């Protein structure tokens, strides 16, 4: 009979040693330096923004929400995919496929939500008063206004961030224990032991842990679903372009779509970087491909439904929004988005393509910016062509806005690299469980 040693040792060693390796590859340092530089630029831009105000952006009346909101809902959308892969699949009985991916998918979620949360604060006219959105007692005696979809957004972003953070950490505890037990030096051992809360794999601990972990997973899924990428902020307003119940599912679908693409990219790069072919097998890629295809088609259906609804409503302004989207100021953006999102995607109908990392990477690399462009058109569409033609206006993002967007990308990469370096990026115990 095969003992644990033979089955479990390889995966343990392989994953654990990524975090425990004494010497780090130059590539990692290079990536860290680059993303670090972007992060510094981000911080500098933020300082500039806070010093001079949102006047340095291209926003105006009517387009008073610009890149900041686009980025926010884009990041929030990415996050939902991580939750889906890890939490939702955890609740689906009898599948272990997720085990290889869930850990870094969750990390992606946590970081993405954090990035999504940065923008709403930066975009305030008076960021110094942001705390007025929280129910803090004061001598003013005035409270937040809870009918506002923006207050909903504050609550849901906050909840979503903390829930996914907790879910991620709790799931990591046993693997941190593994790192502790394989760590060489006493200091690292102590550090990982603290992080692992002294986990000792007790049967009772496992039992209670499982209950808590599943509960957290459920909460994460609920939070993510309801938040649906901040769609309420748009759907609840009277703007003809946004005011539809179809918007939240639309944003959710596109969010999952883009998020899956990002997870796929992370999967491929980690797999290549650390030779995790044994852990992340072709089967994983195949399923990821299928999921991406399904999500893409779901989103396509959602988009089609919205368009049909707009046309079928008979409301001239909704129709006009469609036309504006198709042939208006941002027609190029619209069609670019459509092409990027749906044309390369079709390759995934073929099994061979789904198992070819290069193809998968290409598709994912097209989808992610595609969805961002779609968000851009959506946000502008609702504002630049509102009810009164006299108030129709245009908008062009400024350098400051682009810098902030790039900055969050950099910060995301920076933090993710640290995660890869110091934390178990694959759920080892789950793979053990699966292989046992």
């Amino acid at each position, binding site marked *: 009979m095969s003992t*644990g040693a033979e*089955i479990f040792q390889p995966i343990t060693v392989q994953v654990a040693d990524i975090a425990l390796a004494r010497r780090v590859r130059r590539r990692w340092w290079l990536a860290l330096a680059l993303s670090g530089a972007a992060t510094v630029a981000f911080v500098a831009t933020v300082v500039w923004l806070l010093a001079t105000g949102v006047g340095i952006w291209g926003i105006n009346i009517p387009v008073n929400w610009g890149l900041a909101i686009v980025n926010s809902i884009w990041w929030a959308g990415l996050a939902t995919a991580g939750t889906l892969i890890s939490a939702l699949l955890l609740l689906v009985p009898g599948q272990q496929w997720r085990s290889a991916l869930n850990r870094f998918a969750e990390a992606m979620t946590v970081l993405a939500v954090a990035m999504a949360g940065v923008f709403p604060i930066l975009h305030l006219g008076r960021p110094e008063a942001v705390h007025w959105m929280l*129910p803090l007692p004061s001598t003013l005696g005035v409270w937040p206004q809870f*009918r506002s979809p923006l207050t909903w957004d504050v*609550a849901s972003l906050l909840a979503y961030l903390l829930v996914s953070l907790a879910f991620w950490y709790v799931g990591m505890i046993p693997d941190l224990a593994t790192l502790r037990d394989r760590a060489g030096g006493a200091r690292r051992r102590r550090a990982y032991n603290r992080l692992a809360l002294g986990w000792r794999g007790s049967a009772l601990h496992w039992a*209670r842990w499982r209950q808590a972990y599943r509960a957290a997973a459920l909460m994460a899924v609920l*939070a993510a679903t*309801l938040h649906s990428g901040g769609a309420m902020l748009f759907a609840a307003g009277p703007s003809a372009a946004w005011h539809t119940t179809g918007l939240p599912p639309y944003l959710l679908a596109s969010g999952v779509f883009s998020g899956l693409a990002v997870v796929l990219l992370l999967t491929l790069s980690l797999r290549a970087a650390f030779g995790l072919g044994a852990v992340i097998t072709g089967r994983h890629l195949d399923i990821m491909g299928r999921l991406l295809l399904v999500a893409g088609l779901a989103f396509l259906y959602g988009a089609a439904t919205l368009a049909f609804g707009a046309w079928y409503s008979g409301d001239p302004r909704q129709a006009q929004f469609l036309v504006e989207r198709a042939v208006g100021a941002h027609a190029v953006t619209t069609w670019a988005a459509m092409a990027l999102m749906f044309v390369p995607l079709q390759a995934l109908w073929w099994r061979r393509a789904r198992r070819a990392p290069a193809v998968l990477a290409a598709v994912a690399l097209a989808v992610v910016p595609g969805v961002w462009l779609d968000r851009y058109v959506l946000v502008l569409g609702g504002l630049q062509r509102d009810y009164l033609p006299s108030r129709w206006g245009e908008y062009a993002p400024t350098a400051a806005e682009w810098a902030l967007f790039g900055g969050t990308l950099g910060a995301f990469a920076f933090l993710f690299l640290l995660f890869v370096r110091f934390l178990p990026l694959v759920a080892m115990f789950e793979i053990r469980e699966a292989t046992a």
Partner: protein
Amino acid sequence: MNTAPPAALLASFPDADSLLAAARRARQEGYECIDGHSPFPVDGLAEALGFDERRVVLLAGAGFVGGFSLALLAQWWMNAVDYPLNVGGRPLAAWVAFAYPAFELACLAGAVVGIAAMLLLNHLPRPGHPLLDVEPFRRASQDRFFLSIATVDPRYRPRRTEAFLRDLGARQVLEVPP
């Protein structure tokens, strides 16, 4: 070899099944202060050791419900009671609107309470547990499976218990220092 009696005996097993079998036997023998240690959750092990509780789940549920109602109540009090303001001609007690943040905060409360309950019931964090000082026990988080019998167990007898563990098929039996 120190003279003081050990805190517990620790038997190591190659795989989950043998640990599970051993745990069942030990229970039959009437041992009470026993525990299993595995690098992944072994189905049925806890139950085999007599674990039977749903407190964590129930507390998480309570957290969800409590969080929801508390959030709902707080919003209603702030917007409809303490400082009622006509906001866009909407109702003062806009339950549908209040439900949205309430639900999100309920999710937060549910997750946090569930996890907190788990940690408290498990007496975690506890980085200083004596088991962690046992060199071979490090495999418990990697590829080994252990059964521990505390010396405080009424059925514990130094020689007999060790022998018992050995014929359960333990690869080795260690003494956990006090």
